[in-house]
């Protein structure tokens, strides 16, 4: 595989980098809100749930845009000297992240629909139900939403650890491909990646 990707880019395109970091903030917030809101009976439960629903739909919309950008701009390639297992993990993780970014909001929306719980966002925006009411469906979707949520957080931790490994140990320019800005020093690491 070429070190500069199919389109010859060394880095992700600026709109891709912007969406990545924006969504990283949203998704981490979302996971904390989700696990926090179900742990309490305090009045903040209602506010957190409202944030969870609204932010979830926002993430779904951003994920669709991001997927489209991915087809437009594609992705820069991985360093040539990356071991095969690491390369496989890196590529597989991208598919899983896209599936979770699109799937988690849809699972949540579908679960509430099947529980006949109205999905009302901030500002009184009322979303239509996307599934008929059914307790078995709800139980299944709810479990999937919960366990995939934990999976998502675990994968984000691995993602952060992996990128820190690229940045601090391998210094191979993989982090720089998605870094918001590139310093002179990071430019050198990008050169190393593509050497």
């Amino acid at each position, binding site marked *: 595989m070429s070190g500069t990707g199919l389109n010859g880019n060394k880095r992700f395109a600026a709109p891709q980098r912007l969406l990545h970091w924006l969504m990283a903030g949203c998704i981490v917030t979302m*996971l904390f809100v989700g696990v926090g809101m179900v*742990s309490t*009976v305090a009045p903040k*439960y209602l506010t957190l749930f409202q944030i969870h629903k609204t932010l979830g739909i926002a993430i779904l919309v951003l994920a669709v845009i991001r997927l489209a950008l991915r087809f437009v701009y594609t992705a820069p390639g991985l360093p040539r000297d990356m071991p095969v297992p690491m390369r496989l993990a890196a590529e597989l993780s991208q598919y899983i992240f896209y599936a979770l970014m699109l799937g988690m909001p849809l699972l949540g929306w579908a679960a509430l629909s099947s529980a006949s*719980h109205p999905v009302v966002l901030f500002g009184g925006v009322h979303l239509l139900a996307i599934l008929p009411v059914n307790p*078995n469906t709800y*139980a299944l979707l*709810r*479990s999937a939403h919960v366990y995939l949520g934990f999976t998502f957080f675990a994968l984000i931790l691995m993602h952060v*650890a992996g990128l820190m490994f690229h940045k601090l140990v391998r210094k191979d320019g993989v982090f720089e491909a998605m870094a918001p800005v590139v310093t002179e020093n990071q430019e050198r690491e990008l050169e190393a990646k593509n050497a």
Partner: protein
Amino acid sequence: MSVAGGGRGSSPVGALAAIAAVVVVAAGAFAYTAGWLTPQRLTPEKLVGAVQPKTGGVPGHRRNHATGICITGEFTANGNGTELSKASLLKAGTYPVVGRLNLGGGDPHLADAMAQVRGFGIRITGPDGQEWRSAMIDAPFFAAQTPALFYQFLTAAGSKDPNAVKEYLGAHPETLRFIGWVKGHPRTESWTEDRFNSLNSFVFEDANGGKHTVRWSLIPANTPVALTADELKNSNPEFLQQDIVKRVGAGPQKWELVVTVANPGDPTADPTQAWPADRRTVDVGTLTAEKVEDEADGPCREINYDPTVLPVGITTSDDGFPAARSAAYRVSFDRRTAEEKAYPHTAGGQQ
């Protein structure tokens, strides 16, 4: 410019330690947020655990108010509520209702005479899809001032130490007053003779942005007839169910939905305190029960009567109970839907 961890080829120990530290701190923050590091946090699971029977609740059934029967009908708003709230469901008109008349307690086969509390859950749906759900009971005030105190009381009542509940009640006369009501109030012969109260306060917002803290009640059109102690003792275990089937079969049964407006300074956050009787009330419409169906395959079974499902124009107030009830009802709903196989449907119903 230097880079953390030194140049390529230097020892990676520092870098690996930094990676481990980031992962541990992030995982720790997540665990803290989830409540895994704070066992004293009042979770909805704890609240449901304290409310449901010690045996853990009957699989497939609601963890409280487990006995119930579905009614369908309509709410006819007379329009008088619009001066208090811009909620579309208060504009003059007729809106469909799915309700559930029920008995307090976690036993789905409770003998009707044994019920300490009777309840009525309603869901009113507007043409725009907005919903107003409310779960009311026949008590005129509640057993505890806050969800945390309610949990303390239930824990004391369930404790093996007989002094625990005595101590709690000694410090909480409002709970003792509720117990007095449970033991002493007259039992009527019919749900259609009972008054059901929201107990919790909510905020109505009018079209000009004015806010009014209110509670509401369903007041029966039928005159209450109290059963004597003997009549109650010898009553059929399902006399309330039989009564509602018979009465609704003979004709629609009605309640007036009456909203009580708090005066400034009234205890809006404390459902153990009824507001003085001279407070302004507004009759906002009539609720009519037109059809009764067994819960087994009736339309109320899949409904979680979450009191925080409210139309635009009605919100929660400084009363902490609706949020706690919403969280606890969710846990009850999650459990019973996961136990769906254990719920006995009738032959003609869905799987």
